[in-house]
């Protein structure tokens, strides 16, 4: 019970910390002071008090993106184990629901971007739709390899199993995680796929889709993005974490790893530039190939 409570509190309270950590890392790497780590919390509190502005073109679909994104993210977070603590809800086949919940969030975001009738947002929506459809097979092939290894279709079993790292599974696991890191960067619109801090709308993917959101809807968008950072991050971290004998040690390891992941993303962002838009599909296909190879290794 206490575990579930901690799970819920982590999901509700922790996500906005991650973008703050990334930004701080980037600032320190660049020799700047940077915004405080808790900046996103302040932003959310401010936005929640602000009046939202709606264009005359928009309809109820405009709100479906922010609300659906957060709702799908929260529900999906109930299905993943945090570290070696099992997920609150788990059943055979929950992994498919997990993947499709993110699909739902993305679909609604795309529709709410198209609802504004702005050409910039349409452009972002088209890019997001294309890139995420390319990232999807990488996610699924990774799941397939893990399912084959653990003969289970439940995230709690699939992700917790490789903690023991059997020798036969080490190679495929490394490939899966490498593929999923690519998916992680793409899905969370980080460098080298997308630059969240760019100043030019023509080069954006995710940010350009939410240009017209303001006030509370925009707060939901920002919170949903940080939630995605947490939940998809868990997917990468859990198989890589060693199992500890005590529950509190597991939680501690999980939090430390999460902070480590945020710092790592910050380091990646500081050390390389965004790819040209035409090179992004190649990068995503590299992720698909890595997971496909892992899957093949599991089959033979």
């Amino acid at each position: 019970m206490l575990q579930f409570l901690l799970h819920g509190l982590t999901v509700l309270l922790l996500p906005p910390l991650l973008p703050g950590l990334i930004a701080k890392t980037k600032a320190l790497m660049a020799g700047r002071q940077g915004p405080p780590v808790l900046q996103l919390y302040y932003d959310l509190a401010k936005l929640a008090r602000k009046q939202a502005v709606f264009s005359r073109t928009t309809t109820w679909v405009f709100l479906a993106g922010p609300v659906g994104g957060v709702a799908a993210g929260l529900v999906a977070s109930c299905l993943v184990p945090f570290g070696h603590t099992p997920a609150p809800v788990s059943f055979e086949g929950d992994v498919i629901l997990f993947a499709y919940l993110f699909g739902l969030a993305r679909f609604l975001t795309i529709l709410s971007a198209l609802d504004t009738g702005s050409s910039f947002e349409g452009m972002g929506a088209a890019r997001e739709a294309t890139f995420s459809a390319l990232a999807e097979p990488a996610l699924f092939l990774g799941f397939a390899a893990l399912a084959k290894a653990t003969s289970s279709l439940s995230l709690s079993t699939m992700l917790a199993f490789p903690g023991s790292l059997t020798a036969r599974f080490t190679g495929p696991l490394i490939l899966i995680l490498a593929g999923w890191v690519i998916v992680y960067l793409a899905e969370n619109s980080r460098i080298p796929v997308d630059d969240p801090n760019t100043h030019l709308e023509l080069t954006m993917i995710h940010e350009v889709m939410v240009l017209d959101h303001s006030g509370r809807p925009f707060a939901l968008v920002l919170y949903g993005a940080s939630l995605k950072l947490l939940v998809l991050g868990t997917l990468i971290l859990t198989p890589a974490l060693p199992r500890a004998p005590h529950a509190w040690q597991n939680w501690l390891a999980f939090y430390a790893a999460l902070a480590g992941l945020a710092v790592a993303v910050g380091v990646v962002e500081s050390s390389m530039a965004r790819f040209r838009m035409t090179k992004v599909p190649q990068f995503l296909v590299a992720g698909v190939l890595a997971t496909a190879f892992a899957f093949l290794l599991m089959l033979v």
Partner: protein
Amino acid sequence: MLDVALVLASTGCWFAGALISAVPRAPERLATGLGLLGSLLALGAALHLLLGGAVSGLDFRVWGFPARLELDALSAAFLLPLHLVGGLGLIYGQRYWPLQLAWGSGRSLRFFYGLLVAAMTLLFLARHGLVFLVAWELMAVSAFFLVGTEHEKPEVRRASWVYLACTHTGTLLLTAMVILMAQRSGGLLWTVLPTATSPWFEGGILLLAVAGFGFKMGVLPLHFWLPSAHASAPSHVSAILSAVMLKTGIYGILRVSSLLPDIPRGVGGMLLALGALTALYGVGNALAQRDYKRLLAYSSIENLGIIAMGVGLGWTGRATHDPWLMALGFGGAVFHVWNHAVFKSLLFYGAGALLHATGTRDMEALGGLARRMPRTALTVFPAVLAVAALPPFNAFLSEWFLYRGLFASLGRGYPWSSALGLVALALVGGMAAVAFARFFGTLFLGSPRSGLVDHAHDPAASMLLPMAVLAGLCLAVGLGAFLLLPLLDRVIAAMAPGTPWPPALLAVGLRVDLRLLAGVELGLLALVGVGLAWLHRQADAPEADLPTWDCGYAAPVARAQYTGSSFADAWAPVQPGLRARRPRFRGLFPGGASFRQAFRDPVGEVFLEPRVVRVAERLLRFRRFQQGHLPVYLLYVLLTLLGTFLWMLLRGRLLG
């Protein structure tokens, strides 16, 4: 006995309704009432059977040979979507295609619509080769007249003729299959065949079935009639064609394979691969369509491919005596048949409402319809999410079944076909999401792209009501799928009558999982409600009339919006039929530029059409036999008779 009589009465009602509406100045209410009564009767009988009623049959004699009509779980599973969509389409069609139109096509439309439903009802009952073929032809021919309702347009005539040629080629193959089966069982009556003789024989029957029924299902090289036929037909006809008539192909292969004592190994894997390719091909081409009804038709090809994957998985399970695999494969296929019937007919009704309001099938001329047709947009929305297989709507559940089946077969030594299926299913899901984000975004969202949208408004209540019913079903089936498990178990048991296996496989194996899944989906809906409430608590300020901010761009024009084509532009490499001529820019100050793009179906229009035209030109030589004079034809008859006579005389000597 009672159930089959009810279904026969339903056929009678539909047939009577069709006849009445063919009469000049027909009482339309009576005809519609008869059709609806027929639907209710058949739905009641099918549900009664699926909920545990006994199989009931009716024996009679055709020309002295025994024949049989029977209602079993498999028939009932296909009667459900037929009479749901058939009845709703009847309500929808009243205002969509009024009887009093100037060109008088309303009467023939109503007649053939009733005939189509009656023929398909008979088809699902037939257990006799000849009765089956007669019902099949009746269905095919009435569908031909329905597709050609607007026969004054040349492209409609063309579409209906292509359809007729395809369906008759299919019937030819099916006749061969029926003869082969009659050879095997010693009669035209369809009963479960006794023990297997040779895998070649069963394999031959199955191959003929897949090829013959494949024309209806639209599997990969045989699909080319489908998009233009669906685009040309009136929308509620497109709905029943896509939701039910394509499924008669699925019904056919399921029925024939259920009669065979054994399924050869390998056939299942082949069908799985074929289905995966069909699904990918369908969704890739759906991305390229500008005509929104053609887009829906290509999406039907995709979904039929997904269903075929399920059937292939089920066959693999049956061939290897693996009940769990069989249950997931067949269960997923039948469940997707139901789900596709619900959401695709809803999409076609929605498309009909748009066509009714704007008069164009070109997506690029529309936009912003969600503001002008809010109720249509709201009812179509669940179907758009369902077709992209997103939770919590119905199609997600049937794809979930298939994922479970594919993962299960992964663990049982069929890694290659299941790996292909998994990747295909994941890719198809992603691409369908792109295609339908484009569909909904271009049609309903943004600002209008032309003046056609100005006077658009929601359709009449009698058109909205069927859509609302279907939209409700999309969500209800998505949440309450665990209630359908016993029904699916009955259907699966009917598909492998010979094999001893535990009853209620799905109900035992999936109940807990599906309940938890429904709980998670309810949680999702609750969170959406909370989120919306939180957003609305604040919206008390007066609504200002503001333009889209769009980075401060001062004069936004509708033409600058992303079009449907530009939205899908990145996918051009995987759209085999799309040909584009892109402008080339040279120098620092390039002149004017133009961009053209056209879609032609790679199999039907690019590959087959020129070849068929060439053959047809060669065949023109035989035209001189067709003089048009009665004496010449009488001469032909005489010559044929003489030839037959000579053959009878000389046969003994020639053959020894």
